[in-house]
């Protein structure tokens, strides 16, 4: 199955093409504010390198986050519209799992991090189960200290924020913390690979209703919710 994978959750945006479990080509760019500008030309570049047209692929996979809200809106909207326009199936993939996948041979707890702004991170715990990764517990969004408090065993921290917060993590966890390579991040190919079992199981997503995994709400929503809860309690 030939799958185009897109992930725009991180500062590094990435698009890749796989053919079965073979990675055909992968492309990444530092997207400060140009996710939207570059996403289609990058898609075209990847397809051309792979010698395929959009109509010739069998499906799309897209990182749905958590991560940059704006980045995710670009990636998810582009991926689902491409899927809709050429009538191909689509799978939404956790952008954290895509980072953890790089370290799937490790036997310890995997802790991928994605920047959440304001010195916060998105995270989740994964453990390798044979060829796949199993998520343990819920997604996390908050500061590093809150995350390290949840770690009680040796853990491998992955993703760019792991290096940004390396000192703080080591300060809290000492020898329990280890770190992946500073270059490890999500990749379009990995997002595509993670979709294969889902497609095989007939568990593709609906291209119309697919939305990012935000793990948070706007300030206005939070304030309104608090006001409504207070009003109900009175």
């Amino acid at each position, binding site marked *: 199955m030939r799958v185009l994978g897109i992930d725009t959750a991180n500062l590094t945006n990435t698009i890749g093409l796989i053919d079965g479990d073979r990675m055909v080509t992968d492309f990444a760019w530092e997207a400060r504010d140009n996710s939207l500008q570059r996403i289609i030309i990058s898609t075209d570049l990847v397809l051309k390198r792979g010698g395929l047209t959009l109509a010739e692929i069998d499906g799309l996979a897209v990182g749905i986050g958590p991560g940059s*809200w704006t980045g995710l*809106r670009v990636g998810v909207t582009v991926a689902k*519209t491409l899927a809709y326009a050429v009538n191909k199936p689509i799978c939404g993939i956790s952008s954290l799992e895509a980072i953890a996948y790089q370290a799937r041979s490790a036997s310890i707890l995997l802790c991928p991090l994605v920047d959440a702004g304001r010195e916060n991170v998105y995270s989740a715990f994964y453990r390798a189960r044979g060829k796949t990764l199993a998520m343990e517990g819920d997604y996390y969004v908050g500061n590093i200290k809150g995350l390290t408090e949840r770690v009680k065993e040796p853990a491998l921290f992955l993703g760019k924020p792991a290096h940004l917060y390396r000192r703080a993590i080591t300060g809290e966890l000492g020898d329990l913390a280890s770190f992946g390579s500073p270059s490890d991040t999500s990749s379009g190919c990995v997002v595509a690979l993670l979709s294969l079992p889902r497609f095989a199981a007939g568990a593709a997503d609906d291209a119309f209703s697919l939305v990012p995994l*935000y793990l948070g709400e*706007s300030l206005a929503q939070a304030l309104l919710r608090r006001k409504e809860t207070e009003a109900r309690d009175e």
Partner: protein
Amino acid sequence: MLVLGIETSCDETAAALVADGTILSNVIASQIDLHARFGGIVPEVASRKHVEAIGYVIQEAFDSAGKTHTEVDAIAVTSKYGLIGSLIVGVSAAKAMAYALKVPLIGIHHIEGHIFANILSNPGTPLPHVCLTVSGGHTMLVHVKELCQYEVMGNTLDDAAGEAFDKISKFLGLGFPGGPAIESLATQGNRAAFNLPRPLGRSRSFDFSFSGLKTSVVNMFKGRDRETLPLPDIAASFQQAVVDVLVSKTLQAALHKGVSAVSITGGVSINSRLREDFSAACGRQGLQVFFPRRDLCTDNAAMVAAAGAARLKYGEMSQLDLNAIPNAPLESIGCAGKHC
């Protein structure tokens, strides 16, 4: 030429199919009820809703027009002017559609869309004419010299006229959006009850300012028990002050340019008082006045498709690196980045 228009610059997710000036479908998913709970538009909420709705809206535009993807000749999208997070969703979808269907893409300025809402509704509108486009997000006077040839004559210096309606409505406890609430209450009120300012009414510039008018209303009635407020009179007096300024500036602009016609577009152009006063004043001056169809006054994608078709006819198109630019100036055709 069959053009798919996409518009997500603010709080409406819209898609439309327009073929050579004929609207085949005009689908709008309004988020107004969602934002009413907040008393105004919350950009993050709007952006999220656009991502949820965009696919359904595009599909509905094809279904209700009875057209298929392969029949589309071009995609037009609002890429300039609006909320950045909202614009991004429409541009993402439009670029993906254009790339997948291998058809030209054209990015459109939101204000140009509103100018075309009238041209689409009234193809006989003379050129040149002066267009007042007025909504909750903008208040702009444009000299439409020819198709896609513009000179921006005036702009609001602070609040848009529709925004002033929203804020006064909120102050009076009438809810969001303010336009329909104030208009309906005003029908029972006396529009001369209160002497409110006509900001910049006598200035020779074509710019607008509504913030001071809003403050005057607030200062006149703040601290008073809402039950004792003559709400219909306030609504009618306030609405009249806004309409008076819009009418006088637009007529001044038309006279200054020596045009024979004006068009009034944007969400506020639905207002009946505004339509009546414009018709009467233009009649006295011997000017023709045009308003869009009611469903083309508020944000829609048919107007974007129409503007796109016009630009494509002149050979303009966007590249696939098209970006969303929230505060871009309105540019004439062939003038991208240049001063014409």
